[in-house]
């Protein structure tokens, strides 16, 4: 129950803090996931490709494998992980749509 003006302010500050906390967690997820996205494609598949090609994965030179196979698998996994994380976050902050 909101009885006084003071309570109203408290509720307002609370929602504002919640909103910020939600957005910060979201941004943290994005930074971590996009770092992985960058490392597997631009890092392993392009910038470090010659170094990684010294190693092999079965018949694949490793850097070449990342460029033509591995990066794509990681991309798919990243989206599904993101969906899981965000669904949990939505539930935690009561933003879930159902």
């Amino acid at each position, binding site marked *: 129950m909101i009885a006084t003006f003071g309570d109203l302010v408290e509720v307002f500050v609370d929602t504002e803090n919640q909103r910020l906390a939600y957005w910060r967690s*979201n941004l943290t997820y994005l930074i971590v996931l996009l770092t992985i996205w960058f490392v597997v494609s631009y890092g392993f598949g392009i910038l470090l490709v010659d170094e990684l090609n010294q190693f092999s994965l079965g018949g694949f030179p490793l850097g070449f494998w990342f460029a033509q196979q591995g990066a794509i698998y990681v991309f798919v996994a990243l989206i599904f992980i993101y969906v899981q994380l965000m669904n949990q976050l939505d539930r935690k902050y009561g933003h879930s749509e159902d």
Partner: protein
Amino acid sequence: MDVQTWTFLIVGASFALYIGIAIWSRAASTGEFYIAGGGVHPVANGMATAADWMSAASFISMAGLISFTGYDGSVYLMGWTGGYVLLALLLAPYLRKFGKFTVPDFVGDRYYSHTGRIIAVFCAIFVSFTYVAGQMRGVGVVFSRFLEVDITSGVLIGMALVFFYATLGGMKGITYTQVAQYVVLIFAYMVPAIFISILLSNNPLPQLGFGGFLSGELGSQVAGGQQIYLIDKLNQLHAELGFAEYTSGTKSMLDIFCITMALMVGTAGLPHVIIRFYTVPKVRDARISAGWALLFIAILYTTAPAVAAFARTNLIGAISNATYSSSAPDSVKKIPGWFKTWEDTGLIAWVDKNKDGKVRYDGSGSAMVGKPKFAVAEDDSTPLGASGERLFSNSPTDNTNEVYIDRDIMVLANPEIAGLPNWVIALIAAGGLAAALSTAAGLLLVVSTAISHDLVKRTFNPNISERSELLTARISAAAAVIVAGYFGINPPGFVAQVVAFAFGLAASSFFPAIILGIFDKKMNREGALSGMVVGIVFTAMYIIYFKFLGGTSDQWFLGISPEGIGTLGMIFNTVVAVIVSRLTTAPPEHIQELVEDIRIPRGAGAASEAH
């Protein structure tokens, strides 16, 4: 049954299916026409997005392109998949929450500017037409190659079909047709891929066989009794014949980096892809349908490089130093039958420069000037060379290489190389058509929505009734089909060049404007618009200079090709936008609230006019 009959049968059945779906899913409102009523299941939306995205080029040309460029071809693989991660994490959920119909809607509303909306409309229309002309041409080419119909009639048949289901069903018809088209195209792609993988590596999974030992019926022939990895053998063959190493490529690292980035960001900024995420019921569905879309795309995109390597190894192994004449004794290595079949289509050509009757294929450069043209004798008969090969009127080059091979053959000839039954060849035709038609329909919808919704409804005549708007949408879809068909029949010579434009423009204009609009609350009209203008002008000038005004590759800025310049355009756009926005007044309060609102998923509701 022969190939021709099978092709008519399978293509006919697939077309009947598309028409049936169109009738079942007619659109009754603008909401259904633009975004399928916002009620599409995420998995269905994922399939539709995948079919929308994978064009005739992905289906027919990509494996061939990788086959001939090796590691350099990775730019397409990573570029055309990695964009979906950006889309899922940075764009789709927020645009879905924003809840309007189009990208120009977002730009116009978020930056409280009609100018912004109109710039966005023209970018969307330009990008879509650039793309769609190529698709219509693709339809014509598939028809002419498999059904012996000429290209013009092929384009007309394709136009009639798209016309029917796009104008009738709008986004709703297109979405459910695309689901069917995805199933057709992925089946058509995987069947020959699995067979060729078994033939070369004895492994039914192309993705694994690609990294395995050469074995199986064709593989053991190429290996010649050795226990050797397919990729090692391929590199070895390349070294022997003077080609660049398959797993290393020839482009500079910075250029590879920039092209990949431009393709990724461009993918995430393409209006026909973004619009798909408005069709699902909830924000949560928008996130997950990007995941499904990428999974469905990845099935083809991880198979393509495997097919590329298999086809390349088999091609070199089968034709290098083979004797052409069919009367040669059985003890010598003879050219396989498919080489001769495809010679008749002009996609393979052989000029016996040293007159030894053996096919010499090496990395010294092209065998002849231009694309092969058959020589014609005085009496209209087909002149044949000493070994019985077709002759060509092109002048041969001084290189030692004697073979011309069209890149598309890597997918088209696969079933024959693998000795597969006729129905599989027919399946390739149906798959190629499904890929081309689904992409064309998605693009045409963007054009029609841009005209009826963004221009007519939001700019010129806000009081237009729902019925008239729906009619306008149908008429613009019809007009767009006709224009696209015209370009398909009379392709402007610059189609191949302008594809770089489509990605460069999407990357350097839309992408930063949308991202900043979501993640930077203080981004204002002045900043976003000046950034877009700087990005477009810089990217367009660079591409025009190098593609049309004869700029040469030694003048490339930092060695970045026109295909990759969108990356720099995007960076300039972002920097200018941020600086300008901080020097001008902050956006109005209600816009900042709008940004707060789209960051929270709850309460998305179906996209609508009301807001």
